[in-house]
Every structure is written in structure tokens, then in C-alpha cells.
């Protein structure tokens, strides 16, 4: 019995790893066309190919990488480029805040490692999975690690192919739609309950209202306002129902 009990977490972790791989697969596939396009954009720019390519695994965020490459190519001031890319990535702060409590018992080194791949698709898959609350510490890390390795593997491979082949996919195929389609699918799965629906609708509207916000900070601002308003409706409902 002892050995059975001791062995169980290991099986759980392995199963969780496979679960992470399986859940991220459609999302990893959906970002591949974007990765190809970025690789091709690097190849067509005046940015040194190796530096532009290294931006893939180093930055691990497509829109910020593309912004960086395009602005370098246009000869923008380095500080302006860095600030633009970081404002664009500031939304990751919210993902970190939302996932951090799940990893609070890990060592600092482990948490620093877990932070490396954090990005939209990984967060959007891991957060709802963790909230089911049937994974222990090891299983959570296995799930997250499985999903992260597939996402990064596909991402770097797609950029490499795009850079070497020198072309993205023909627009008529519409494969650029894969990423927003997958995100729309995650949106459909994530809006459960009134506060979540309010948060989503408010965020989507604030993006439109805030279209002119500097340095593409719109997504961060919109998501924050959406969370705040959604939270207000949740607390108001609690108060009226109690």
C-alpha cells in the first residue's frame, strides 16, 4: 500500500504533463502561422537575421517581437522601441498575478524558471485547468511544463522555417485567422457567470474606446478595467443576495 501511495503522485504528474501537451496543441498550432510571418518579416528586414531570430526564443511574445523588428528596421530610437515593446507586454503582469498563487509553495529558483514561458496562450490554458483544483503541486508544474514546451517548440520552429523559407503563408488561405479563432474559442470557454461576462464585454468595449492609447497599451488598460468592473458586479451581487 505504501508504495502505491508513494507512486501515485508520479503517475498524476505524468498524466498532467500529457494533459498540458494535449490542451495547448490547438493553440500552439494556431500561433504557427504568426510565427512563420514573423520569421519572414525578420528575413525581409534590415535587422541582422540571427538577432531577429533570437528575438523569438528570448522575447517569447510575438507582437512585441514583431514591433521590435519593425521599429528597428524603420530606424526608431532604441529607447522608444524598448518602451513600446514592454508596454505591449505589460499585460503579462496580470497573468503572473493570476498564476502566482498556484506556485507560491515552490522555491524561488523554481518560480523564476516557471516565469520564463509565461504568455497569453499558456496562461489561458493553465489558469482554468488549475482552477479545477484536482492537480497537486507537482502535477500543476508538469501540466504547465508540458504545455510550455510544446508552445515554445512550435513557436521557434515556425519562426525558423519562416526565416529560412523567406515567405509567410498566402493570405487567401486565411491561416492568419487561426490565432484569433483559437482566442475566440478560449473566450467562449472562459465566460462563465455574470462577472466574467461583464468583465469580457467591458474589456472588449474599452479596447475600442481606447484605440488611440499610446504605445498599444489598450489591451492592458482594457483588461484591467474589465476585471475591475466585473469584480464590482460580483461584490454587488454578493451584497444584495446576503
Amino acid at each position: 500500500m505504501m508504495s502505491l501511495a508513494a507512486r501515485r503522485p508520479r503517475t498524476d504528474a505524468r498524466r498532467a504533463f500529457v494533459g498540458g501537451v494535449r490542451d495547448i496543441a490547438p493553440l500552439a498550432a494556431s500561433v504557427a502561422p504568426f510565427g512563420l510571418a514573423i520569421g519572414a518579416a525578420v528575413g525581409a528586414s534590415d535587422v541582422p537575421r540571427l538577432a531577429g531570430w533570437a528575438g523569438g526564443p528570448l522575447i517569447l511574445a510575438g507582437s512585441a517581437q514583431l514591433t521590435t523588428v519593425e521599429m528597428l528596421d524603420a530606424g526608431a530610437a532604441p529607447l522608444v522601441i524598448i518602451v513600446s515593446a514592454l508596454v505591449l507586454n505589460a499585460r503579462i503582469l496580470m497573468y503572473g498575478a493570476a498564476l502566482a498563487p498556484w506556485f507560491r509553495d515552490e522555491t524561488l529558483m523554481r518560480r523564476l524558471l516557471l516565469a520564463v514561458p509565461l504568455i497569453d496562450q499558456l496562461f489561458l490554458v493553465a489558469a482554468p485547468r488549475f482552477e479545477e483544483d484536482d492537480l497537486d503541486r507537482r502535477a500543476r508544474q508538469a501540466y504547465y511544463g508540458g504545455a510550455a514546451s510544446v508552445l515554445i517548440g512550435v513557436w521557434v520552429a515556425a519562426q525558423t522555417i519562416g526565416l529560412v523559407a523567406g515567405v509567410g503563408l498566402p493570405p487567401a488561405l486565411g491561416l492568419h485567422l487561426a490565432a484569433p479563432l483559437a482566442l475566440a474559442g478560449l473566450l467562449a470557454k472562459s465566460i462563465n457567470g455574470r462577472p466574467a461576462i461583464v468583465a469580457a464585454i467591458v474589456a472588449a468595449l474599452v479596447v475600442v474606446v481606447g484605440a488611440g492609447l499610446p504605445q498599444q497599451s489598450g489591451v492592458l488598460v482594457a483588461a484591467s478595467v474589465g476585471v475591475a468592473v466585473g469584480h464590482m458586479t460580483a461584490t454587488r451581487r454578493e451584497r444584495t443576495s446576503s
Partner: protein
Amino acid sequence: MTPWLVIVAVALGTYAIRASMFVLVGVRPLPRRLEAMLGLVAPAAVAALVSSIVLIRAGSVEPAPIPELAAIAAGLVAVRRTGNVLAAFAVGMPLFWLLTPALP
């Protein structure tokens, strides 16, 4: 040299953004009020991402072509009905291919 420096700076800055909350959570627990909001980050962030991809071009409101809008809306409904993210591709892509030649 400059491209390398800029790319490495963006990478380090992005990593600092990623790691900050993971480091902080070990120092002190997040405030309860904040923690209550965290479940709403996913719906709000993904709605903002989709909205900005579909409706915003280069800092101004410019909706994507109708076939793309229709495909994404149909994908959203399909996943809502089936609970499977793959349904978004299964419904959205064919709809896009059908509508693209039909609409300018």
C-alpha cells in the same frame, strides 16, 4: 550591435514583467481583494485581445473584413456549444473560405 542590445533589453524587460508577481508571491501573499479578482483576468484579457485583433488597426478603429468577423463570431458560438476549442477552426475556417470569394 544596436539590434542585439535592443532585443536583449526587450527580452530582459519582458522577463522582469513575467517574474515580478512570481517573486512577490513568495515574499507576501497577495491582498485578498486582488486575489478575488484574478479569476476574471482570463475572460477580460482574452476578450481584449480578440477585440483588438479584430477591430483595431495601427491605433485606430478599423474592423477586419466581413468574412473574418463572421468566421470568428461563428467560431465563438461553435466552441460555446461544443466546449471544444477545435470547433472554432472546424467552423470558422470553412466559413472564411466560403465567404471570401462571395464578399469583397
